[in-house]
């Protein structure tokens, strides 16, 4: 366990942890405004990447493919809220029914993409190319990693500022604390719900352009990060945006460290072990607060 290997583990852990943290943030904005755990977040990410690959293969410039992918996926996220989730909430459907509908959306998006686009994984080039930087003797960083660190910091900062300063962001926060009080001071719950799903979709759609260049993008790309994202959220807790950030980064670093220093069977189980540990000892998450359940 040399210093170089520890630094490398930290850098790689923070890189995948940033992806988990951003997906956890996209679950977070939806869960605080609506109480819904939207399974499909990973799928919006996948759709954004697939759209990007498709636009690039049509010969469109990178910036247009980037914007097109993100706008397309966000539109789908808002459409799912309008067409499926709003009618269910209006009818006050039970938790079980809502969860099943969300799972149905996830299946339709995932396997629908598989049927339309095909089942092959394709590479998605990163915004900063594929340079490798050498720090010290044995530590390497991709240019994409810097994009990931920078984008994560920027997105978290803008979401926090938006929630504190803008009228819509404040509506979202008051709805999280007390929906009835929110209605009494003139907040339109339908707007808040749509904004929450749209923002969640937007964050997930941006994550595609951070995550997919590390590997490739195919119709199953959203599955694992989608699950790790909500595990990270429950580890961190839903009391403030710090929860998804800490949960995601901690999960990422622990996974990479376990993969580096322990047999692979432990590395795969670390997310579950961490989640169980947190749920039993601190059900409101590491950054717990008044929203404990």
């Amino acid at each position, binding site marked *: 366990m040399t210093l170089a290997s520890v630094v490398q583990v930290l850098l790689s852990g923070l890189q995948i942890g940033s992806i988990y943290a951003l997906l956890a943030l996209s679950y977070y904005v939806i869960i605080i405004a609506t109480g819904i755990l939207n399974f499909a977040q990973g799928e919006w990410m996948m759709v954004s990447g697939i759209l990007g690959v498709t636009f690039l293969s049509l010969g469109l410039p990178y910036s247009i493919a980037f914007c097109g992918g993100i706008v397309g996926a966000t539109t789908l996220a808002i459409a799912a809220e309008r067409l499926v989730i709003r009618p269910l909430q209006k009818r006050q459907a039970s938790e*079980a029914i809502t*969860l099943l509908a969300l799972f149905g959306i996830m*299946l339709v998006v995932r*396997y629908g993409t598989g049927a339309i686009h095909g089942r092959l994984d394709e590479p998605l080039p990163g915004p900063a190319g594929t340079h490798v930087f050498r720090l010290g003797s044995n530590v390497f960083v991709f240019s994409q990693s810097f994009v990931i660190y920078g984008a994560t910091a920027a997105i978290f900062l803008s979401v926090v500022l938006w929630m504190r300063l803008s009228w819509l962001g404040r509506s979202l926060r008051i709805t999280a604390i007390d929906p009835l009080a929110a209605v009494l001071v003139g907040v339109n719950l339908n707007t808040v719900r749509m904004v929450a799903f749209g923002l969640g979709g937007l964050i997930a759609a941006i994550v595609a352009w951070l995550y997919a260049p590390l590997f490739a993008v195919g119709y199953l790309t959203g599955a694992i990060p989608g699950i790790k994202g909500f595990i990270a959220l429950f580890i961190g807790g839903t009391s403030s945006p710090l929860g998804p950030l800490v949960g995601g980064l901690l999960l990422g670093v622990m996974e990479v460290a376990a993969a580096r220093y322990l047999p692979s069977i432990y590395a*795969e189980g670390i997310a*579950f072990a961490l989640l169980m540990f947190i*749920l039993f000892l601190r059900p409101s998450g590491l950054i717990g607060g008044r929203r404990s*359940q």
Partner: protein
Amino acid sequence: MRGINAATLPRFYPLALVGAGIVTMLPLTADAYHLTIAINLCITLILTLSLNFVVGNSGQFHLSHVAFFGTGAYVSAILAKQYHLSPWLCLFCAVPAVAMLAALIGLPITRLKGLYLAVATLAFSLFVEVLVNQGGALTGGGYGIQDVPAATMFGARLSAKSFYLLALAALIMTILIIKNLLDSKFGREIIASRDHPNAAAAAGINPAATKLLVLVIAASFAAVAGWLHTFYYLTLNPVVLSPEWTFVWFFMVLVGGLGSITGVVLGTMLLTLVPELLGFAAGQTVLVIGILMIAVTLFAPRGLAGLLHDLAKAVSSERKGR
């Protein structure tokens, strides 16, 4: 729960029983392909009925049913293949093993509620899938376990037809046990713990223990289904542990009607047989199931049992009107 039962259709009940008897014997005249469908239906029914027992009757939102099914299947296969245990003996090892696993995991998990319970159990089922995939020589990893020794009876290997009778017997036992449990004092304790845990506790019931016991019983049925799966197909791979299965079974329960045994049987039969008959089973089953999930939750949230109940009510009120 509301649903069709013997009281709603008193005159048709003996007739329905005879009809069901004839229908259940039909697969004995069928070819190997249709026999496989029938056995698969029996296994799926055991799973959906036991899932309904936990989710519908006891109101616990457990998403780990596939983990108990898969563990039952894998324990049976490993004992039979690597330790050369008799398949019948495997059943008596797999069921207690899975029941113990359910008790161990249920002890802390049944404390959780709602979304937290769903997330924890879903994570558990993912964990089991990963564990089996990484299990090395013991579980065969992604390749799985092939050539499990077949079950024998009186020295002869069980044919597909006798295996169908075995699966059918297991299914009928499952229905009878769950129905009797629900009709007993324990059944009323289950309902009380679901609807009013504080009142139940005041009446001397331990809601936590009741919920845990329900989970252990349901997991044992899932283990039986896993045992049947292993010794019918004689091969096993980690696909049987994919967490998506829990949602598919849960969907069958919901289409039938949460909490109703008759509804769950009808819903499972509908969703297992219709894809086979329409022929889209091979291509886009999962996509079609996803579309159906959204459609049912939006337009028929009370499921088949709810629809039939409304229909029976409409018919009887028309009769009274005359």
